[in-house]
Every structure is written in structure tokens, then in C-alpha cells.
């Protein structure tokens, strides 16, 4: 056991983390879905919906479909926040869009680039929009090549909303956390698995008209068990690739206020490989899940082997037994 003074110091740090987490809201904001880049001459622009509050933009993820070209070395991206460039290139025209592969720096054939932290966080004021433009680098060797019209890019903005005071309910949770911290010397990791309720399993709601019989254009929802104690949600893991997700906490916090995002945005994986490579995404500040609250997910519109509407049975198969048809969504939590 550590000395009393040292133990108290650790406990105070744990308490401070909870207090900070209660003031912070993690937000995953997708850019509006954009049309495909049809050929080399196209420049396509995507916008975030106007934000309802001041937020901190701390990073983003970028993914693209992997149909053609086989190599994405010519992909270019330009980002603007508050009317200022985040990527400063040299010339006009196409060259103002930069090949962003190296910024995320994964293998040449990959189409999921993972999370890119901004060099430093930036405030996006309420009503502000984030603009992304996509095109192909003309020097990439695809001159004259028509791009597959199913190509698309997807940007997910990683933001934080920060409150300037706690609500009464927050204060109550904070007090519960203090009691927990006072009586527990250590924090314990907890995995919250999402489970699709049986009624949802049978429903397989048709989404958008076509019932693919296995998840395409379908939707269903899942939720975690209600927690008995306050938990800090540190991140999430999933192997859903082509599904779109909406996540919320039944206590009221919506992680995705601007709508569904593509789960693939959080993935890093090889092109053409829909194998279930799990995501391990961490929030910069944990989310506090109040006692009795549940995490709720809508998963929509999966394709191929990774079905958005595939039910979660709440189990994560061991890595060597993971197959594409077994999907999971798990939140990585820790006690206060």
C-alpha cells in the first residue's frame, strides 16, 4: 500500500479526472456525405453541419472506399477551419490539395488512415463549419484514368464540447464518484459489450427500401447493460467496417449530434480487406457513464461481410477465431 499522503494524492488525481470528464463531451462529427470523385479533374467538397456550440477540434480521421484505383497514393485533401488552411501547400489549383497519405502514414494500399491529431487543438466557434476538399494528385500516375464513381471519402471530425459548470445531476454523480474513490484504492478496467435485444434481432428494420436479407440497407440497435456504478468510458472497439454508427448515452449525451458516421473512419486496415480488424479508439477525455445509464448504438447500412445490422451477441471471440460475420462493439471503461 502506498503511504497515506501519496494515496490521497492519487485519489485527488482520480477525482480531478472525473470532474474534468463531467465537464467534457466527446463529439464525433462527420462531414456531410459527398458525391464520388468521378475522374481526375474533379474536386469535391464536403462540409460539417453548422455546429451548435463552440467546440475544440483535436483531430480527424479520413477514409475512402477502396475500389479504384488500387493504390491511393494520388489522393489529395485540403482542410479549412474558420476560413484558415490547416494544410499549407505551395501552388494554386490541384496542388493546393495535398496528398495526405503520409500524414497518417499507413501502408500504401491502405484506405483507412486512422486518427490524425492536429498539431495543436483549435476552437471552432458555434455556427462554424469545417470544409474538406478531395481530389487526385495529377502527378500520381492516374492521368486520363477514370475513377470509379463509387469512390467516396469520409471525414470524421474529433471534437470536444466543454461545459463551464456542472448540473445538479453532474454534482450528484461527482459525489458518488468521490465516495467510490474514497473506498477503493484501485481503478479496475471494465468492458461494456453491446448486445442487440432479441426483439431487434427479429425485426431487422428495413432502412432505405432494400432488404438485403443480411444487413445491407438495414438498421438495428444495441445497448450495453445498465451500469451499477459510475464508469469512465475511455474508448471503443469494434470490427464493424462499412456500418454507420450513432452512439449515445441513455442519460442524454449524444456522441454523434451531427448524425451517423462510418465506422470505417475509426479503422486502420488494408485495402480490399474487410476482415474484422478491430478498432481501438480512445477519447482524449473520458466520458462519465452515470449509474443506471446505458450506452446505446444504432448501426446502419452495412455491406458485404461486415453487416451494419448484424446483431451483437455480447461476446468477443478470441482473435484467432474472429470471422467477418461476428461483429462486436465494446466500450473500454474504467472505474473512477
Amino acid at each position: 500500500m502506498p503511504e497515506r499522503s501519496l494515496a490521497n494524492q492519487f485519489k485527488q488525481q482520480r477525482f480531478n479526472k472525473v470532474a474534468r470528464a463531467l465537464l467534457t463531451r466527446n463529439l464525433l462529427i462527420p462531414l456531410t456525405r459527398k458525391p464520388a470523385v468521378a475522374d481526375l479533374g474533379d474536386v469535391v467538397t464536403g462540409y460539417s453541419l453548422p455546429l451548435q456550440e463552440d467546440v475544440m477540434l483535436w483531430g480527424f480521421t479520413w477514409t475512402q472506399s477502396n475500389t479504384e484505383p488500387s493504390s491511393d497514393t494520388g489522393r489529395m485533401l485540403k482542410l479549412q477551419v474558420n476560413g484558415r488552411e490547416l494544410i499549407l501547400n505551395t501552388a494554386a489549383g490541384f496542388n493546393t490539395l495535398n496528398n495526405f497519405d503520409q500524414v497518417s502514414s499507413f501502408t500504401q494500399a491502405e484506405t483507412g488512415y486512422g486518427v490524425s491529431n492536429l498539431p495543436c487543438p483549435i476552437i471552432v466557434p458555434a455556427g462554424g463549419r469545417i470544409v474538406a476538399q478531395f481530389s487526385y494528385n495529377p502527378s500520381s500516375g492516374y492521368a486520363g484514368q477514370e475513377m470509379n464513381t463509387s469512390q467516396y471519402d469520409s471525414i470524421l471530425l474529433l471534437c470536444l464540447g466543454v461545459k463551464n459548470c456542472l448540473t445538479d445531476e453532474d454534482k450528484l454523480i461527482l459525489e458518488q464518484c468521490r465516495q467510490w474513490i474514497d473506498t477503493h484504492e484501485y481503478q479496475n478496467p471494465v468492458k461494456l459489450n453491446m448486445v442487440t435485444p432479441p426483439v431487434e434481432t427479429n425485426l431487422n428494420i428495413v432502412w432505405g427500401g432494400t432488404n438485403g436479407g443480411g444487413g445491407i440497407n438495414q438498421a438495428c440497435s444495441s445497448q450495453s447493460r445498465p451500469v451499477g456504478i459510475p464508469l469512465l468510458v475511455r474508448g471503443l472497439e469494434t470490427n464493424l467496417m462499412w456500418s454507420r454508427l450513432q452512439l449515445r448515452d441513455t442519460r442524454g449525451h449524444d456522441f454523434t449530434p451531427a448524425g451517423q458516421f462510418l465506422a470505417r473512419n475509426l479503422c486502420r486496415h488494408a485495402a480490399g480487406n474487410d476482415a474484422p480488424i478491430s478498432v481501438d479508439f480512445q477519447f482524449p477525455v473520458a466520458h462519465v457513464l452515470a449509474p443506471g445509464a446505458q450506452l446505446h448504438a444504432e448501426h446502419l447500412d452495412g455491406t458485404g461481410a461486415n453487416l451494419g445490422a448484424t446483431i451483437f451477441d455480447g461476446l468477443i471471440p478470441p482473435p484467432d477465431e474472429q470471422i467477418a460475420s461476428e461483429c462486436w462493439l465494446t466500450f473500454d471503461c474504467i472505474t473512477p
Partner: protein
Amino acid sequence: MNTWNRTFNETWNLLAGRDSRVARDEGARARLRAVKIAERYRGYLLAANTTTGANTAGTINIARTPVLTFPALVRDVNFLTTPFMEIQITRTNPSRTQMSNEFLWNNLYGTSQLNGLQNPGIPFSKCPWVEPFNLMTNELLQVRFQQTVTDAPRADFQQGATFRVIGLNRMPCPIQHWQEVEDYIRRNRVQHPLWLTTFSDDAQTITFPSVATGQRTVATTREAPEPLLLTAFAFPIPFFVNLNSGATKPKIRIVSSDGHILTPEPVLIGSLYDFSGFTAGGPGGGWLWWYELPIPHYLPQGGTVTIEITDFNATAGSINVDELVWRATTV
């Protein structure tokens, strides 16, 4: 506290309504201090490259860094070697009549096993010392590569080590300059993130194998729109195609417009890679992930950074040299 954590906390406080005069002053002081440190102490990538590879078991190659003309702090080292290499690093002072070698590191045996890779010409993760150590003026670092098995090695795979060092000679800074920086910080409450890309003045794309050994190309960033602190760069050469073949491997030389030469000797690009960053895809291809500078580099408004790439000699593939990116923030 690094720049990201500091700016994260400041931004969080600003949004939480906890902005205060005291916090603003503290933030401004931290920003000014970061610029002062970046200007007074310069970072260097110190290369020690062999001229040939290792052929059979027992082959020994010696590589030396340039002789230091200033005292420096050595932070860590990356290697590019064949597998199953025993590495020994010593510090020497060649100006003394009697060599006094100080043993630093020995028997880093089977480095490829550490990384779980068996391909020849592989880069290794950064190897930090338990404590960074000082090098004195007129000293150099000598790296001895000894091949221990005949299995994978090849004679034509050049090896090298790149040390990240911080020069401890204080550079003079005019007072007027500080006032300009201070004014800028006062005018700009928050720092702005920026990725600064480079642009080739001769050819955007170099295609192999038409390029002979010794080919060079130069790429320069646009002029900095505001005073910046550069913290890292990312490089677009796919490892497998361009680094793994040929007697000489591509090297880079980095110079900023204020005359600071980050690489006194050209650095093997492969020896900048850190395989711990490749969590997916493995060594079959991939870009250099962010290579952190030993210490942030201050780039005044209007300043540029030039990167020269030499010694291409690969069998296939191409490189777009306009794609190197610097990670920066305004001061």
C-alpha cells in the same frame, strides 16, 4: 509538458470559461519560452552510415558520425541494418593522440528478432538510452556493425544509424527579435495548427529505375505565413520499394532558410523509420510516420525549409517529392 498537451489544456480552459489573466500570462510565457529554447538550442540528426553492406557472418562495418564542433545531448538512435546484426556504439575523440573510447552499447544482438522481422535492410524502432548523454566538442560516435549469421545478409545493403541530438551551444538572439515574437504572441491569443508541405522545384515525380545513383532533387516549403515552430516531419517514400534495394539508399539533407543544417551528414531515410509505428500492413510498404525533431525548430515568418534527396537507386517505384509534410504550430 509538450506543446500538444499544453495547448489542449489551454483550449479546454478557454471553453470551460476558466480563462484568466494569470492563465493567459502563463500561456504566453510558455509560448515565448518554447521559442527561446528552439532558437538557442538547435536539433540535429547525426548520421553514421556505412559504405557497404554485410555479406557473411563475421563481416564488420564501421560507421562514424561527423566530429562535433559543439557539445550535444544525444537523445536516441534509429538503425537501418540487415538482420542478426551485433551493434556496438562508442564515443571517441579523434583529436587525441591516444584514443580513449568509452563503451556505450554492445551486443544488441539479433535486432531483427526484436522487431519480429526477417527482411534485409530493415529499420529498427527508436532505441532511447536510459539517460540521454552528453557528447563533447571534437567527439564523435562510432557504430560497429557485425554480421552474426550468413543467412540473410547481403553485401549491397548499406547500413546506418541516425542519432537525434540537441546542440548545447547557445545561439545568440537579438533582443529586437524577442520583442517581435512577444508582440505576435500577445496579438494571437491561441496557437494555430498547420501542416506545411514541400514543393519540388524541378520534378514532382521521380520514377525509377530511370534515375541513376547520385540523382538529387530539392523540395522547399512555401514561406511561413506566420512565425512557426516545426516539431516533426512525415515522408512519403514507401519503405519497401525505395529503401530496400541497391547499393546506396536514398538519403536526405535538411536545411532551413536561416542557415541551420539539421543533417550535418545526409541521413539514410530508412534509418529514420520507426517500425513501432506500423501497426497495420507491416513492412511491405508504408510511409514514414511522424519523425519528431530532437527539439522544435523555430521558423520565422517568411522562412522556408529545404530538403534535398540524394542517392536514389531503387529497382522500381516512384516518389513524389512534393509531399513531404512538416507538422507545425504558430508560436
